[in-house]
């Protein structure tokens, strides 16, 4: 299948409440025209590549207690047993036991674990992609502390190489690798947007400065759907008098290569950011309000690069919190009750859980926590690429109801988060359920409430 | 090396509290006495076959009391028989010739078997009596008695 075909068959839907490709019919998706043997061999090769001591520990440890189901929004919302998190890994576990486990010899010799088949992987495509946001809530309930989300991430590698990814996700990932953005935010589009926004909002937006202390990145969701975020970013950084820049050779923080499971694309996408940051001599790379971008660069970036990164990587919420607390960002009090939706990859799995709360406190707003919050927050249902997959809509909407109930229970006036993917999932859910709550961006709230008389200190801010 | 003398010995008092078995036994006696009264059914309870503490036994003795009859039988050692204050309940204690208790029984009966004359003994006695009678000098004017009927 050529790339042109994909663009024609699944054109971008830029007017929809959340970005994606045109809705195809329900199906098992297959990319490429490999035979079944080649496909399964490729899947196995890429499954096996990932089996190290950590994955092995996890796969040996499951006691089949079934508790992970109770933590998963897709199981809780639907009651369907197949959405039990550990069940989603069944073919992956099967491959492990047969090929790499300590007793693999017996499993092979006596065929105690059968070879994984293409039919099986096709069946599991829905479980590995459509019904897992890799939110990691199941890790929190597992009595053996098995990190199922990371295993799903690994399982996706084999699926992607074997061409068994849901089309929309494959499509955006491929476009991302090819064009530099999953949603059409090519370098040209990005630069034009920045210029237009600078004019429209009368704000200085440096792009492609040769040297800068801080390199800022954006999510294409923000670029295309929430461009105010670009403005907000610029306002805050300018307010601080920071030495910063966007780079047209490394601005896209989303990494659909990682979400689809294509390790090569993941690397390509990450290296763009890393090389751009190195090129401009940045000491700090700020990741935008995007969940998986944090996991991709903050925690996996250096490993993709193969050595420690020569700059620090921080999420925008961490940056805001630090500078609100040390007074470099000064804000007017925002006397409202506010509830915060933790983006799974930043909070629970990323470890930046306190930063947004510090920022909210610095804003002077009253934070009303949801009943399950922080490390145990319910996922919005759209992460892990799920929001791109149309056939997952029914279960995603069901899962979203859990989220809506949580938000309603707080009674807070403002609903905010630090992930534009969560934000578009909320917007989509809001439209679907005709809900009266709109998700806001914490970054935009800070930018909108900056104190007057910005300090145009020339000194650099680390 | 420590000598045997160094090994202290502590004498632990035997269990002497009431175990409750004595009370259970009295309930049992009540049932069996009722059967004796209504159906004439006799019964016996081996006191040594039951886990009774010294206190239990003492309580039983005090509770049952002593009735009107007491007998001592001298055959291969002593046997002591007495009726308790509750007519129909007898205590029969068998001793060996050197005075050890070999059996201790509560009999629920109108008359314990050990007191009753064994039928064989009666027949033997009859023969012996007649023999003895033959040795007895006859009184003038009387004929010999006959105990064929017994």
């Amino acid at each position, binding site marked *: 299948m050529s790339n042109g075909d994909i663009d024609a068959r699944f054109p971008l839907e830029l007017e929809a409440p959340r970005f994606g490709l045109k809705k195809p019919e329900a199906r098992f998706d297959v990319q490429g025209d490999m035979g079944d043997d080649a496909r399964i061999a490729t899947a196995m090769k890429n499954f096996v590549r990932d*089996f*190290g*001591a*950590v994955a*092995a*520990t*996890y796969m*040996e*440890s*499951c*006691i*089949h*207690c*079934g*508790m992970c*189901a*109770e933590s998963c929004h897709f*199981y*809780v919302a639907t*009651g369907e*047993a*197949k959405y*039990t998190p*550990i*069940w989603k890994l069944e073919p992956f576990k099967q491959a492990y036991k047969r090929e*790499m*486990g*300590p*007793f693999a010899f017996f499993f092979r010799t006596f065929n105690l674990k059968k070879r994984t088949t293409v039919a099986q992987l096709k069946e599991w495509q829905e479980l590995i992609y459509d019904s897992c946001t890799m939110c*990691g809530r199941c*890790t*929190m*309930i*597992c*009595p*053996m*502390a*098995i*990190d199922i989300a990371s295993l799903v991430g690994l399982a996706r590698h084999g699926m992607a190489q074997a061409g068994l990814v849901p089309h929309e996700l494959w499509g955006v990932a491929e476009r991302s690798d090819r064009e530099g953005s999953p949603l059409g935010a090519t370098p040209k589009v990005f630069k034009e947007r920045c210029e237009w926004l600078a004019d429209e909002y009368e704000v200085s937006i440096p792009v492609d400065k040769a040297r800068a202390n801080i390199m800022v990145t954006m999510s294409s969701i923000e670029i295309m759907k929430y461009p105010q975020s670009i403005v907000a970013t610029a306002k805050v950084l300018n307010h601080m008098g920071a030495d910063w820049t966007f780079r047209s050779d490394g601005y896209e923080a989303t990494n659909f290569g990682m979400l689809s499971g294509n390790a090569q694309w993941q690397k390509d996408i990450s290296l763009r950011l890393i090389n751009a940051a190195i090129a401009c001599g940045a000491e700090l790379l700020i990741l935008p309000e995007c969940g998986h971008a944090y996991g991709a660069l*903050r*925690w*996996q*970036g*250096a*490993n993709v*690069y*193969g*050595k*420690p*990164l020569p700059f620090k*990587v921080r999420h925008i919420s961490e940056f805001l919190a630090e500078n609100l607390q040390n007074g470099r960002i000064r804000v007017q009090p925002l006397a409202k009750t506010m509830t915060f939706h933790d983006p799974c990859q930043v909070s*629970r*799995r990323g*470890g*930046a*859980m306190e930063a947004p709360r510090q920022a909210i406190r610095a804003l002077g707003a009253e934070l009303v926590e949801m009943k*399950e919050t*922080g*490390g*145990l927050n319910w996922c919005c249902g759209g992460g892990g690429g799920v929001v791109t997959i149309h056939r997952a809509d029914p279960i995603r909407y069901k899962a979203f109801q859990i989220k809506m109930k949580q938000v309603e229970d707080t009674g807070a006036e403002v609903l905010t988060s630090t992930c534009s993917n969560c934000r578009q999932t909320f917007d989509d859910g809001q439209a679907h359920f005709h809900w009266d709550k709109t998700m806001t961006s914490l970054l935009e709230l800070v930018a909108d409430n900056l104190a007057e008389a910005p300090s145009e200190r020339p000194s650099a801010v680390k | 090396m420590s000598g045997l003398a160094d090994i202290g010995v502590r004498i632990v008092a035997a269990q002497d509290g009431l175990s409750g078995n004595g009370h259970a036994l009295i309930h049992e006696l009540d049932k069996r006495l009722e059967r004796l009264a209504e159906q004439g059914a006799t019964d016996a309870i081996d006191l040594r076959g039951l886990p009774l503490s010294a206190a239990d036994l003492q309580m039983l003795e005090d509770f049952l009391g002593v009735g009107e009859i007491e007998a001592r039988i001298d055959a291969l050692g002593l046997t002591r028989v007495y009726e308790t204050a509750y007519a129909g309940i007898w205590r029969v204690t068998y001793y060996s010739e050197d005075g050890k208790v070999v059996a201790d029984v509560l009999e629920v009966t109108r008359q314990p078997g050990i007191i009753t004359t064994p039928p064989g003994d009666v027949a033997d006695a009859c023969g012996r009596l007649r023999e003895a009678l033959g040795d007895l000098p006859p009184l003038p004017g009387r004929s010999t008695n006959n105990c064929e009927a017994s």
Partner: protein
Amino acid sequence: MDLLSFARGPALQWALVIFLLGVVWRLTGILLLGRAPDYSEPRNAPAWPGAFKLILTRSWPKREFAARTAFGETMSYVFHIGLAIVVLGFAPHILLIQSLTGLSWPGLPTGLVTLSAALTAGALAVLLVRRLMHPVLRLISNFDDYFSWLVVMLPVVTGLMATAHAGPRYETMLAVHILSAELMLAWLPFGKLMHSFLVFVSRGTTGALFTRKGAAL
């Protein structure tokens, strides 16, 4: 050789040999697989205290999950704690452990141990029914789950029977009890019962990895 002598003699020796062989085999086979270096800038270093933290804290369920998992967790606690009381509290068991490891501690009254065993057996029975009824558990269960259940249940039941003098004569029942425990020992490394060791490895791994990132535990 009678059954009891067989159970205490060669059977016990073989069971322990298989047990040790299997446990070491499996742990080594897992831990010696590749381990990729992590170049990311750690949020917390060193991370290993997190391993111990999670090993401890994950033993207690989180309040947020309680409503949905209370029943299964309660039953599991009953049978795990009950089993621990029986295995570690019953004097003859302590003697066995002492004879093998030299470690010893005071035993518990037989009545308490018997009660624990009965509760354990009850909880295990309930959990089996649950496994057969609950759609999730039925879906994810395999031979290992049912066989492991059996080899745990057998020593509990035969132990109770031996204590209660039920079934065959005591010495036979005792031998059957010991043999059933040996079956459990021999099976432990090869099935899910291995979690008695892997729980430390698995929780420790996640604890350390997540502490490094500052992620929620």
